[in-house]
C-alpha cells in the first residue's frame, strides 16, 4: 500500500539518479554536437563520393536501428571482442553516436538552407573556407536549426532512461530497484515522471526564450 513516509525517504536517491541522467546527457550532447557539426560540414562541402557513402551509411545505420540495440552492441558486443567499457561510458558512447547522426542531418539541412551567395561574398572579401564556415555559415545554420536542436536535447534526456537496461545507476534504474524492494510502485513511477517533466519542461522553455532572443537581435 502507498506509504508516503517511505516514499519521501526515497526521493533523495531518485534525485541523485536524475543528476546522473543529466550528466550522461550533457556528455553525450557535447560529443554528439561536435560529431554532428563535423559530419554536416563533410557532407555539405566534400565532393568525394566515397566520403558521402561512408558517412551516409553511418548515419542510416545509427538512425534506423533502435538505440537499445546500439547500447547492447557497445556494452555486450564489445566485451565479446575484449573491450570492456563500464556501463556509464557505453551509454555515453552509444548516445553520442546516435546523436551525432541525428544532428548531422539537422545541421546539414541548416547549412544547405543558406544561400550560396553568402559563401561567395565571403570568398570575394578574401576569407578562407574555414573563416567563412566559422563566421558566416555556422552561426546562421545553428540559429536556423534551433527548434530541431531543442527537440533533440529533450529527446536525449528522455533517452538516458534506456541506459537503465545496462544497469547504469540513473533515475530509471534506481526507480526499478526501489520498486522491487519497497513496493511503492505507483508513487515511485509518478515521481519519476514528474522529475523527468521537471527536467524537460524548463529546457523547452529555455530554448523558446533563446529563439526569441536571437530572433529579436536581428
Amino acid at each position, binding site marked *: 500500500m502507498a506509504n508516503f513516509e517511505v516514499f519521501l525517504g526515497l526521493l533523495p536517491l531518485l534525485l541523485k539518479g536524475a543528476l546522473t541522467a543529466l550528466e550522461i546527457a550533457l556528455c553525450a550532447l557535447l560529443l554528439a554536437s561536435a560529431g554532428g557539426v563535423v559530419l554536416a560540414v563533410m557532407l555539405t562541402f566534400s565532393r568525394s563520393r566515397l566520403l558521402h557513402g561512408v558517412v551516409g551509411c553511418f548515419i542510416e545505420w545509427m538512425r534506423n536501428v533502435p538505440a537499445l540495440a546500439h547500447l547492447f552492441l557497445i556494452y555486450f558486443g564489445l566485451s565479446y571482442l575484449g573491450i570492456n567499457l563500464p556501463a556509464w561510458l557505453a551509454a555515453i558512447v552509444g548516445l553520442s553516436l546516435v546523436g551525432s547522426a541525428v544532428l548531422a542531418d539537422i545541421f546539414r539541412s541548416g547549412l544547405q538552407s543558406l544561400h550560396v551567395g553568402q559563401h561567395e*561574398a*565571403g570568398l*570575394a*572579401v*578574401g576569407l*578562407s573556407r574555414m*573563416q567563412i564556415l566559422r563566421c558566416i555559415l555556422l552561426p546562421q545554420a545553428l540559429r536556423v536549426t534551433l527548434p530541431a536542436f531543442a527537440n533533440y536535447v529533450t529527446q536525449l534526456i528522455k533517452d538516458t532512461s534506456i541506459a537503465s537496461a545496462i544497469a547504469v545507476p540513473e533515475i530509471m534504474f534506481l526507480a526499478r530497484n526501489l520498486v522491487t524492494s519497497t513496493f511503492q510502485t505507483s508513487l515511485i513511477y509518478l515521481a519519476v515522471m514528474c522529475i523527468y517533466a521537471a527536467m524537460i519542461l524548463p529546457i523547452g522553455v529555455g530554448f523558446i526564450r533563446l529563439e526569441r532572443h536571437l530572433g529579436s537581435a536581428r
Partner: protein
Amino acid sequence: MSTPSEPALLRVHDLHKSYGDLEVLKGINLELKAGETLSLIGPSGSGKSTCLRCINYLEKPTRGDIWLGDELIGQVKDGRRIRLMSDREMAPQRREIAMVFQLFYLWPHLTVRDNVALGPIKAQGMPRKQAYELADAMLEKVHLRHKAEVYPEQLSGGQQQRVAIARALAQQPKVILFDEPTSALDPELVGEVLAVIRELAQEGRTMIMVTHEVRFARDVADRVIFMDGGHIVEQGPSAQVIDSPRHERTRSFLGRMAMEGA
C-alpha cells in the same frame, strides 16, 4: 583618368568558359588601366556576368589567363605544370579584387558595421578597433555611417547595396567589380547607388561594371565593351560606342535599350 602609355593593371587573355557542352565565353581579351572605369554591356546570356565572375575566379575559366599587374590570378606553377589554386591560396589575390553582387549578399546575422569590418579583421588580420574605424570611414563614404549598428534586413535595397559597396571598399582593393549592381533594386532606389558609383569613378578607382543602365555607363565609364554570344563585338570610348556604334548588333541592342527607356 589614366594616360595611354601606362601598362594595364588588369589583363584578361583568351578567356574561355564552358559548362559541359555549352560554351559561354569564346575567347575574351580585355585590358584595364589603373584609374579606368570599364563597362560591360550586352543582352542576357552574352556572358558578361560570367566574364566578371571569372576574373575573381568565382567561376573557373576553362581556358585563358587573368593577370593583375605582374601576378597571374588563380593559377600557380606546380613543378612544370600550371594548376588551379585552392580557395585558400587564392584568398590574398581575391582581397585585391573586390566584388559587388546583384543580390548584395550581406550577412544577415551581422550588423552593418560588422559586415564591413569582417573582411579586414579576418582576412587581413587587422585589429578590431582599427577595422571598425575603417568600416565607419567606408560607411561614411556611402553616406550610411548612421546605420552602422543596424541589421541588413532593416535597410532598403538601395541601402543594402551601398553597404555592400562599403564592404568592397574596406578591402582596399586594386579593382572593384560590379555585377549588375542595380538590377535587383526598385527604380526609385537605383539613383542612390549609381550616385555612389559615380563618386568612386570620379575619385579614380579602377572598376569594371556589368550593367543595364546604358545612359549611366555612357556618363561614368571611360570605355564600354559590348558583348554578345560570348564574344566581344565592339569596344571603345563610352561616348563613341553608345552614341555612334559601328556594328549592327551593337546598334540593335542599344536601340532596344533606348526603347525600354534605359
